[in-house]
C-alpha cells in the first residue's frame, strides 16, 4: 500500500497575528512556521503507524516555496519515507489540490491523507477538492482509520456523534483529532531524515479560483464586567436583561 500525506505549513499557534502591505498579506516577520498540527499529529502519525504495522510506504507532499523543506525534513524524521515539494506559491486550495492531483496521476497512491484544515486560513478544502479532481471517494473529519486488505474502516464525526464506514481503496481522508497521538521525532529519526529523498517538482499549470484580498482584526471586547462571586443572581440578570442570551 502506498500512502500519501499532504503536509502544509502554518504559523506556530502562539504567533502574533498581524498584517502588512496595507492589510493585504499576513506579516511573517518573527513568525515561526510549523507543520500544520492536523497533518502532523493525526494524518502523518497514523500513516507511520500503518507503515509499522503493514509495511506500507509513506510519501509526503507539500506545495510551497523552498522554506517548506525544513517542514518536510521534520515530517521525514517522524517517519515518512520520501518527500516531494511542488515548488509554487500555494495560491488557493484549488491550486494546491490541482498540484497534488497531478502528482497522484503520475505516481498513484492508494490512501491519501490530509488534515481537517490548516489552522491559519481554516479552509477545510484541499482534501475534498483533491478527491473531486481524482474522482476518489472522500471521507471527511475521520477520527479513526484502519486498513485490512483493500478495505478501509473509518469513523467520522457527524452532528451529535460518529458514523462508522467501510470504503475500498483508493480514498482521500481528512484527519481529525482521535486518529493518533502526537509523536516527538527522536535522534535516530532526525539523522535518518537527512538522507531520505526530497524531490522538488515544478508546478502543473492550474488557475486559482479565489484570492484573499484583505485582512482585518476582529473588534476587541469592551472589557469584562466583573460580578461578585456571592451574587450569581446578578450574573443571571445581566445574561437575561443585558446580553439577552438566556
Amino acid at each position, binding site marked *: 500500500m502506498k500512502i500519501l500525506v499532504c503536509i502544509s505549513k502554518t504559523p506556530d499557534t502562539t504567533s502574533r*497575528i498581524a498584517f502588512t502591505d496595507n492589510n493585504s498579506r499576513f506579516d511573517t516577520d518573527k513568525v515561526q512556521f510549523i507543520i500544520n498540527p492536523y497533518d502532523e499529529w493525526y494524518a502523518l502519525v497514523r500513516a507511520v503507524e500503518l507503515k509499522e504495522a503493514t509495511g506500507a510506504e509513506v510519501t509526503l507532499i507539500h506545495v510551497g516555496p523552498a522554506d517548506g523543506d525544513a517542514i518536510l525534513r521534520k515530517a521525514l524524521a517522524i517517519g515518512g519515507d520520501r518527500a516531494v515539494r511542488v515548488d509554487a506559491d500555494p495560491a488557493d486550495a484549488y491550486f494546491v489540490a490541482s498540484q497534488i492531483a497531478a502528482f497522484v496521476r503520475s505516481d498513484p497512491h492508494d490512501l491519501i491523507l490530509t488534515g481537517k484544515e490548516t489552522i491559519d486560513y*481554516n479552509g477545510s*478544502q484541499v482534501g475534498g477538492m483533491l478527491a*473531486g479532481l481524482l474522482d476518489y*471517494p*472522500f471521507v471527511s473529519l475521520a477520527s479513526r482509520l484502519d486498513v485490512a486488505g483493500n478495505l478501509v474502516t473509518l469513523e467520522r464525526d457527524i452532528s451529535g456523534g460518529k458514523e462508522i464506514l467501510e470504503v475500498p481503496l483508493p480514498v482521500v481522508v481528512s484527519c481529525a483529532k482521535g486518529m493518533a497521538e502526537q509523536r516527538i521525532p527522536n535522534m535516530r529519526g532526525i539523522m535518518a531524515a537527512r538522507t531520505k529523498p526530497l524531490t522538488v517538482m515544478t508546478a502543473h499549470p492550474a488557475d486559482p479560483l479565489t484570492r484573499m484580498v484583505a*485582512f482585518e*482584526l476582529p473588534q476587541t471586547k469592551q472589557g*469584562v464586567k466583573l460580578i461578585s462571586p456571592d451574587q450569581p443572581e446578578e450574573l443571571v*440578570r445581566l445574561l437575561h436583561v443585558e446580553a439577552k442570551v438566556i
Partner: protein
Amino acid sequence: MSVLVFVEPADGVLRKPAFEAMSYGSRLAAAQNMQAYAVCLDESVPEDSLKQLGAYGAVKVLHDRSACFRPFDAQVFARAVRAAAEAVQARIIVLSLTYNGRALGPLLSAHMQAGLVTGAIDFPETNGEVFRIRKNVFGGKAIATVEVATAVKIIALMPNAVAPVRGEGVAEVETFTSGLQESDRRMRLTGVNKVSGKVALSDAEIVVSAGRGMKGPENWGMIEELAEVLGAATACSRPVADVHWRPHEEHVGQTGLAIRPNLYIAVGISGAIQHLAGVNGSKVIVVINKDPEAPFFKAADYGIVGDAFEVVPALTRALRRFKAGEMTFN
C-alpha cells in the same frame, strides 16, 4: 439564473442550519434579482416541512427522494447538487458548514470549477464583476476578505453567523431526479454512535465548558448540572481531553472543534490562545476562574473571580430559580 440552497436535515427534520442557509440564500437572490431555490436529498423529510422553506424565501424546493443518498457519500451528494444547480442555472450555491457541508463544498467546487468560501460570516459585497465575502481565519483571530472570480460561486456559511429571518410564504415542492443511483455510492455504513439525550456541541446555542481547574473527572457533575439547567452542551479544554477526563469530542480550540454559540461559559480554563481560537466567535463569553490574572478575562464579557466549586453550584441554583420564574428583574 438563480441562487440554489442545499438544505440538510438532521434525522429527517429541517433545523436551524437549513433555515439560516435558506434565508441567507434568498436575501442574496433578492439583492441580485434572482430566484431562490432549495435542493433536498433526504427522502424522509415530509413535503409539508419542505413547503415551509417558503417562509425563509424559497420559491421552489427540488426534492430528490432516491435512496442512494443514505448513508452520506460526499461524491454522490456533490454530483446531485451539481445536477440541481445546472437545472436551475444557479450562479450561487449556498450550504451550511456542517460536518457534511465540509465534505460537500470542496467536492462541488472541484466538480464545477466554482470558487468556494468556507465559513462565510457575512453577506457578500458585490460591485459589477467583483464578488467579495468575509470569513474567519486564524481560528477567529482575524477576518479575511475573499474574492471569488468564477462564474459560479459556492458559499459554505458558518453556522450561527447570520440569523435566519422567517416571513410568510409556502414553497412549491417539485420532485427532482438527479440520476444518481445506489451503485454510485462507494461507502457502506456499518454503525452509528450517537451521543443521545445531550445537546450536540457543534449546534448548541449555549455551551458550558471546563478545564484543568476542575481538578479531576469526578467533579464534572456540577458542570453537567449547570449545562442541564441551561439546555447547554458541554465542552472542555484540550489537556482535559488528553488525559481522558472527558471524551475528545468535547475538546474545543485551535486543534479541536471551533464553535460559535450565543453564550460560552468557561469554568477553570486559563484562556490560552489556542483555546480562545476555537471559542472567540461566541457572542457572549462568561469566565469563572479563581485567578484574577487568568488571560481568559481579557476575552470575556462577564467574569466571576472565585472558586468554581462554590460559584458553579450557586449559579446553577440561581438559574433554577430564574427558569422556574421565581426571579423578577426591573
